[in-house]
C-alpha cells in the first residue's frame, strides 16, 4: 500500500478556478473522504490524482513517487466511477478481468483470435480468469459471471465496478460518488461493504462524496472541500465538534448548525442581540456564535429570548424551530422525544462549553468561558 500526497494543486477551466492550491495527504492504508457540495472541485481533484486530468500547478505523488509525468495507466490506481463505467459488451467476468488482461498479457497475447494461441497466453488467461472469479465471489457476484451489465441491477453493477477495482490490488483506490446512484437502503448496505473491503484489503482509499453521512460514517479522516479549497482535514468526530471554519461548521451536520450574529464588546464579553451570553473572547468586533441544535435547550434561566414557531417529529428526536425576536435569526433545537414543548416566547439556554465562535472572516475564534455569569 502507498500513500497519496497532493500538494498545492491548482486547476482552472477557462476563467473558472476549480482548484485553488489544494493540499491533502492520505496515509498508506487510510480511508479519507473528500466531502463537499456539488461543483466544489472534489471530483476534479480525484480525476487529477487518477491521471485522467492534468493539474495546472502542484504535485501529486503516490507511494512517494511524483506521478506528474505518468499516464493514468501507469499510476497503478483503481477508480470507481459514479456511472460505474462498465463495458456494456463484456460479461461480468470479462469486465472484472480487463485490468488484469491489460497488465499481465503483452500486445501479442492480446491479439484477437490469434493471441489465444500465443505462447504463455493460455496459462496467463487461466490465472486471470481465476483471479477475476475470486474478486467476483468476494462481492457476491459468483453466480453472475456470464451476465452482461444490462442484465444487472444498479447494486450489482456497483459491485462489478468494485470488483474490477479490487481485482488487481492497486496502490490506491479512488472512488467517485460510488453510491449516489443507489437507493437509500442499498446505499447503507453498500457503505458497509466498502468499509469491509477497505478493512480487509487495508487499501489506501480516497473517497469523494457530497453526502456528509457517508463521509462521517466511512472515513478515518474527512477532508471538507468548498469552492476549490480544502478547509479542514480531520477525524469525523473533530470535523463535527471542532470545525475550524464557519463554512465547515455549516456544511457538516444536519440539521444545520445555528449561527447567531454576535458582537464582542471592548472587555471581550460576547453579546447576542445586545445581551451578554456569558462567553468571552480576546478579540473584539463582530462575531458569529455557532451552536449545534442538540446543544440548545429551553431554559427558564437562559439569557436569550426566542419564539417557538413549529415542531418536527423525527422519531428519535424532535426539532423545535424558532426565532430570536430582536434579530429575526432562525434557531433550531434538537430535543429528546416527549419533551415539554414551549409555545410562544421562551428562554433559550445552551451548553457554553459546546459553543463555537467564529470571527468576521469565518475563522474560529478563541472562546473563553466567563466565570462570572452563566448562560
Amino acid at each position, binding site marked *: 500500500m502507498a500513500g497519496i500526497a497532493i500538494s498545492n494543486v491548482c486547476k482552472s477551466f477557462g476563467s473558472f478556478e476549480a482548484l485553488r492550491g489544494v493540499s491533502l495527504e492520505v496515509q498508506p492504508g487510510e480511508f479519507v473522504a473528500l466531502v463537499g457540495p456539488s461543483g466544489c472541485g472534489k471530483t476534479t481533484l480525484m*480525476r487529477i490524482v487518477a*491521471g*485522467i486530468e492534468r493539474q495546472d500547478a502542484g504535485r501529486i505523488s503516490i507511494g512517494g513517487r511524483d506521478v506528474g509525468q505518468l*499516464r493514468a495507466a501507469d499510476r497503478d490506481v483503481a*477508480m470507481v466511477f459514479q456511472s460505474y463505467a462498465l*463495458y456494456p459488451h463484456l460479461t461480468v467476468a470479462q469486465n472484472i478481468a480487463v485490468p488484469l488482461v491489460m497488465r499481465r498479457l503483452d500486445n501479442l497475447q492480446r491479439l484477437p483470435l490469434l493471441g489465444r494461441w500465443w505462447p504463455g497466453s493460455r496459462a496467463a488467461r487461466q490465472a486471470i480468469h481465476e483471479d477475476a472469479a475470486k474478486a467476483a465471489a468476494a462481492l457476491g457476484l459468483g453466480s453472475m459471471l456470464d451476465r452482461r451489465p*444490462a442484465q444487472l441491477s444498479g447494486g450489482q453493477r456497483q459491485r462489478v465496478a468494485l470488483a474490477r477495482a479490487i481485482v488487481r490490488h492497486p496502490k490506491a483506490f479512488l472512488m467517485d460518488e460510488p453510491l449516489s446512484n443507489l437507493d437509500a437502503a442499498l446505499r447503507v448496505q453498500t457503505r458497509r461493504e466498502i468499509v469491509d473491503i477497505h478493512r480487509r484489503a487495508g487499501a489506501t482509499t480516497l473517497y469523494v462524496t457530497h453526502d456528509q453521512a457517508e463521509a462521517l460514517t466511512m472515513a478515518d479522516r474527512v477532508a471538507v472541500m468548498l469552492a476549490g479549497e480544502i478547509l479542514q482535514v480531520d477525524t469525523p468526530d473533530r470535523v463535527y465538534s471542532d470545525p475550524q471554519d464557519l463554512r465547515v461548521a455549516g456544511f457538516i451536520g444536519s440539521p444545520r448548525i445555528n449561527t447567531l450574529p454576535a458582537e464582542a464588546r471592548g472587555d471581550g464579553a460576547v453579546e447576542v442581540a445586545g445581551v451578554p451570553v456569558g462567553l468571552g473572547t480576546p478579540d473584539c468586533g463582530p462575531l458569529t456564535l455557532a451552536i449545534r441544535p442538540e446543544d440548545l435547550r429551553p431554559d427558564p434561566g437562559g439569557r436569550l429570548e426566542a419564539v417557538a414557531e413549529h415542531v418536527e417529529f423525527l422519531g428519535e428526536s424532535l426539532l423545535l424551530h424558532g426565532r430570536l425576536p430582536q434579530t429575526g435569526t432562525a434557531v433550531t433545537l434538537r430535543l429528546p422525544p416527549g419533551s415539554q414543548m414551549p409555545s410562544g416566547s421562551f428562554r433559550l439556554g445552551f451548553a457554553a462549553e459546546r459553543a463555537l465562535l467564529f470571527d468576521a472572516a469565518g475563522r474560529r475564534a478563541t472562546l473563553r468561558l466567563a466565570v462570572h455569569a452563566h448562560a
Partner: protein
Amino acid sequence: MPEAALPARALRAPASQARGARGEALAGLFLTLPAGISYVLLLLLPTIAAVLLAFTDYELGAPDVRWIGIENFRELVDDRGFVISLRNTIVYVGIVAPASIAGALVLALLIEATTRGKALFRAVFFLPVVSLPVGMATAWQYLLHPTIGPVNAFLRDVGVAGPAWLTSSDTVLLSLAFIGIWEAIGFNLVLFLAGLTAIPRELHQAAEVDGVRSAWERFRLVTWPLLGPTTLFVVTITMIRSVRVFDSVAVLTQGGPNRASEVLLYTMYTEGFTFFRLGYSAAITLVFLVIVLGLMLLQTKVLDRRVHYG
C-alpha cells in the same frame, strides 16, 4: 361506409370487455387505413405487378401478354450483358462499401480527436451528400477528362500519363467506384460521428485507469464494440445504396465503354425503357430485389446477434 360505423359503435357501447377490446382493435385498424391504403397502392401492388410481369413476355405497346414462366430468368443466365452487369455491380459494391465504411470510420475518429474545426470538417465531408448527384457527376466528368481535366493535367506535370478515366474499360469501373466512395463517405462519416458522441467519455477514462495505453487498444476495448449498432446500420445502408448505383453511370458512361460500366439498375433501365422489354426488365428488378432482401436478412439475422446494444 360500414367500416366507419364499426369503431364508433364500439366506442359508444362497450357492453363487454371482449367486445370493447375487439372494438378497440377495429378502431386501430381503421386508423391505420390511410397508411395501409397508400402502402398497398404505392408499394405492394406495384411490387406484385413487377413480380408477375417478370414471368411474362410483356413489351410496351405489345397487343397481347403471354405467361412464359421462368423463361426470362433462363434468358438472364445466358445473357452475357446481364452477367457482366451483375459482376460489375458486385465489384462496384465490393469496392465502394468497404472503402467508404472504413474511410468514414477513420475520418470520424480523426475528427473526433481534433479539438478545433470539428464542424468545418463535418460540413466539408458532408457536402457531397447534399449536392445534386447529376450535377456532381458533370463536375467529375470535367475533373477526369483525359485532355482538359485537372487530374490528368496534374499527372502530366509530375510526368505520368494519366489514363482515360471514364472512357477506358480498364479504369471506368474504378473511377465510378471512386465517385461512389466520395459520395458515400460523408454520409457514413456523419453516422459514425453521431455514434462516437454517444459513447460515454467515462468508459474511455475507465479504460485508461484500467491500464489501456495505446489508442489502438482503446479502440478495440471501447470504441469499436460500442460503435457496433452504428456500424451495423452503416454497413446495411451503404451496401444497399451502392447496389442501387445508377445516376453516375447514366450521366457519365451509359454503361460503356463496351459494357465495362454496365450495372444492374442501368441494365434494367435500358431493357425496360430503351428496348421496352418490360417483362425482361422486371425479371432483372426481381434479381435486384432478391439481392437487397438477402443483404438485409443477412445483416439483421447474422450480424445483429453479434452486436451488443449496451
